[in-house]
């Protein structure tokens, strides 16, 4: 893939620990993500990869450690946190489009309410983005009238409308019918090519090979391995990763 830009890392996780009650879901996680880097997080279910993704914009709080974005430590709550979140795009497994708003309104809500853009400006930009993800014809429908793949592409446009510094994808294709997965992955590959910084939790190994700068493999709340896709898929260093890959790649 393209070479990684240098400079201060955009996202930095240091010594992150999180528990759900007794369950230690994130254990001493250290991770840095550079500007323009595409990091794919893979691992078996329950390995903590979604939780890791959700801590980066503090949809999940952490008990120990530190997370900073663009040099700013994640605030605990309130206005500061909201401001920071507005710079971090998030795409969910279940799309989470606002059910009572049209597709266009879904994309303009953040820019109007958070960025204080005028309605006209926000709509112009929203239509551009909907066009870019290939759903401009659906702008006036409500989300439930769209297919899953279309909804997820709207969700990507909604996140992009905030001009985020980094995009988080939490299993963006896991809720989709197989024939809709590619239309979403194509949009994501395009974003990666355009230099967007991305953290992608996924089971799509093809996407990891095509678009990732780095693959992070998690198991039982720990980062077990972090390598280029090339190295990871052909010559993983840990037994756990070898075992995982042998189970998913042998079909």
């Amino acid at each position, binding site marked *: 893939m393209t070479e990684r830009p240098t400079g201060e890392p955009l996202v930095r996780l240091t010594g992150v620990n999180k528990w759900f009650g007794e369950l230690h879901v994130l254990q001493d996680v250290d991770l840095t993500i550079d500007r323009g880097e595409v990091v794919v997080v893979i691992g078996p279910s329950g390995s903590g990869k979604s939780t890791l993704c959700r801590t980066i*914009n503090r*949809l999940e709080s952490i008990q120990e450690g530190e997370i900073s974005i663009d040099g700013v430590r994640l605030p605990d*709550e309130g*206005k500061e946190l*909201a*401001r*920071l*979140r*507005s*710079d*971090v*795009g*998030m795409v*969910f497994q*279940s799309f*989470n*489009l*606002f*059910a*009572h708003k049209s597709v266009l309104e879904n994309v303009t*809500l*953040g820019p109007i*309410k*958070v960025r204080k853009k005028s309605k006209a400006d926000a709509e112009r930009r929203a239509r551009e983005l909907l066009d870019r993800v290939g759903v401009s014809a659906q702008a006036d429908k*409500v*989300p*439930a*009238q769209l297919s899953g793949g279309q909804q997820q592409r709207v*969700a990507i446009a*909604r*996140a992009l409308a*905030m001009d985020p510094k980094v995009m988080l994808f939490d299993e963006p294709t896991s809720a989709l019918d197989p024939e809709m997965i590619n239309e979403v992955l194509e949009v994501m590959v395009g974003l990666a090519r355009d230099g967007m910084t991305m953290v992608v939790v996924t089971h799509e190994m093809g996407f990891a090979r095509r678009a990732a700068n780095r693959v992070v493999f998690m198991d039982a709340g720990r980062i077990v391995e972090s390598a280029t896709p090339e190295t990871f898929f052909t010559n993983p260093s840990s037994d756990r990763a070898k075992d995982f890959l042998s189970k998913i790649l042998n079909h």
Partner: protein
Amino acid sequence: MQFFIDNFPLLRSAFLTTLSLSLLAGLLALVLGTVLAALRVSPVPPLRGLATFYVETFRNTPLTVVFFFLIFGLPQIDFAVGFFTGSVIAVGLYTAAFVAEAVRSGINAVPPGQAEASRALGLSFGQSLREVVLPQAFRTVVPPLGNVWIAMVKNTSIAAGFAVTELTASLQRLSNANAGELVLVLLAVVLGYMLITVPSAFAVSRLERRVAILR
């Protein structure tokens, strides 16, 4: 028929009193109840506690006691309100507790992903509630709020005991004066209440269909 014509002015003014009492108290209850519901789901524990305390207090106090407190209790601390105003406040404060619980159930019925997505965009808690959660919550609470409204219209009858000449008070007056036509008196008063509640029920079911949300 002659009975209705003779007593029309009293019935009309009693009906209008019940109607305005209901509308004003209903408005107060809707606004206050929504605020209370928002406080009950707020991330700030003292605000949640305050709202819970309010709801439990008013939900578990008989409405008549609330009337007594507002109309005879408040003057003791040099804060007198008129009978009508006091009644509006009593019914409104009391009903707000029930509105709050209905709206809260509606908020809980909105899938958590909706609030997550709005917070992820950078909306504040208040914005996320106003723009995303409450508009969807209200759609699901239209039927239970309809129930609360109808119960409240009938609850305004307690104002009869506090010198407000609404429908139930007119029942007392008319039945004293027309003991022979008690059935007609009852009929007139019941019709008065139904003139408010039956159209409300229709309006609620129409509203329910109009705001139904596609998921």
